């Protein structure tokens, strides 16, 4: 059975084409995924991300717990509201989920995890918290709207309640602020500036309308996927899973090895993997021949073996097809991808294709 976010009626009203996503009825587009993609790159778009899971962690032991639970180190968060991207690993070093954690104060952190992994994430967090003085509260009462694009902040500020505007206007990148019932983060999943706004369910439909009046266009999950791919942001379940470590998923930078005495879940396995040397890496591909890269296509690298694309699509900004692929460590700057029996040429690049509206 499919769940509906509190904005479901708005999606219908705004012409959204609804599909099942991780058990939720979500808009894949409101007409044209391509137009929505460009809308975010050039102006401002909004996404209903209320299906995502917000978890508040509080208590005296919360910092120590998160330092154990997460591969990145929340000790890096010294300023109130600062956000951190991290993987949550299993004991084998595989990725259970990727998430954002905001430091609100010494006894309160707010975490946002994926919708598709909600149940296993909550069960894992609960299980691991044994022995820590920490309280875990999911916040299904909060809706979440991401407003993204070069004009996203100025337009969102027109629509925000007066008592939220000042704090939201002053936010630096990758910070969030708690404004009573509302929470505004200057974060996102598109490679553009913007906000992710959490607010009480009951106020979300009216806020959606106010954003639309301010010129922010509704965008679906389709555009969200091509935007994140261009921005070089991993998609959980495709680019990394429970059987791939962050070291071969382009996420080595999110592991905090120092201080060496910090024992986080998965550390021992990752350490061994690192000492032995990884045999694969996650790279970006740009298709030089005509065709479209998708996940799970075979990649052939001359003299160093085979790999596989993990996610791919047409890039509306570059007007070429792009992908992430897991390939042998020795791979250079060229490979071939097998699509329907034909080997097509692709360039291997750093997996960031577009940043702040411009090709990288």
């Amino acid at each position, binding site marked *: 059975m499919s769940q509906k976010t509190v904005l479901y009626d708005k999606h219908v009203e705004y012409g959204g084409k609804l599909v099942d996503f991780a058990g939720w009825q979500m808009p894949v587009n409101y007409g*044209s*995924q*391509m137009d929505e*993609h460009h809308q975010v790159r050039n102006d401002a778009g909004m996404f209903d991300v209320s299906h995502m899971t917000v978890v508040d962690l509080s208590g005296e032991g919360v910092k120590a717990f998160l330092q154990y639970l997460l591969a990145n180190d929340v000790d890096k968060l010294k300023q109130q509201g600062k956000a951190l991207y991290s993987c949550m690993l299993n004991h084998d070093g595989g990725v259970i989920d990727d998430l954002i954690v905001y430091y609100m104060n010494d006894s309160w952190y707010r975490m946002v995890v994926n919708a598709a992994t909600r149940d296993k994430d909550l069960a894992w967090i609960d299980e691991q918290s044994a022995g820590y003085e920490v309280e875990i509260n999911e916040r299904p009462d909060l809706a979440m709207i991401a407003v993204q694009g070069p004009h996203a902040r100025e337009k969102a500020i027109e629509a925000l309640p007066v008592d939220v505007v000042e704090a939201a206007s002053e936010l630096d990148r990758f910070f969030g602020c708690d404004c009573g019932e509302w929470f505004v983060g200057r974060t996102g999943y598109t490679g553009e500036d913007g906000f992710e706004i959490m607010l009480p369910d009951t106020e979300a439909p009216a806020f959606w309308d106010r954003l639309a009046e301010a010129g922010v266009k509704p965008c679906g999950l389709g555009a969200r996927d091509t935007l994140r791919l261009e921005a070089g942001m991993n998609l959980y379940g495709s680019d990394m899973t429970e059987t791939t470590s962050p070291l071969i998923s382009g996420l080595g930078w999110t592991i905090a090895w120092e201080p060496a005495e910090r024992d986080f879940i998965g550390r021992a396995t990752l350490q061994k993997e690192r000492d032995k040397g990884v045999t694969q890496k996650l790279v970006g591909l740009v298709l030089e021949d005509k065709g479209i890269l998708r996940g799970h296509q075979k990649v052939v690298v001359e003299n160093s073996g085979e790999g596989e694309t993990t996610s791919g699509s047409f890039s509306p900004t570059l007007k070429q097809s792009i992908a992430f692929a897991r390939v042998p460590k020795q791979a250079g700057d060229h490979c071939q991808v097998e699509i329907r029996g034909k080997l097509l040429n692709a360039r291997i690049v750093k997996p960031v294709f577009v940043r702040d509206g411009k090709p990288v």
Partner: protein
Amino acid sequence: MSEIPSELKYTKSHEWVRDEDDGSVTIGITDHAQELLGDLVFVELPDVGTEMLAEDAACVVESVKAASDVYMPVSGEVIEVNDLLADAPETINDSPYDDGWLIKVKLSTPDELEDLMDADTYDAEIAED
């Protein structure tokens, strides 16, 4: 509402067929199909001269979202393909029944045309989706 020209024949898998009355037909995908697929970004067409049977996969159309096969509504030999689509696949979104045609086929079994749906039947068919 999708456009469904009354002079064409249709398949359940959303191809349209125009009888050129010279033993050949023109084939494309319907307005309903292009709406379902969304913005098309790549089209793979067969080589001219390829002989195929009805229901064989003849072309691949790819939208930003996904790749889909286009099936032969009838059996025959491909005698022409729409080269315009290589650089402008979005033509199918803009003009599915005219400039966005895919292939022309010389019929090997003209009776197969009788098995295809007329516009009213196709309209009823997609209304059930």
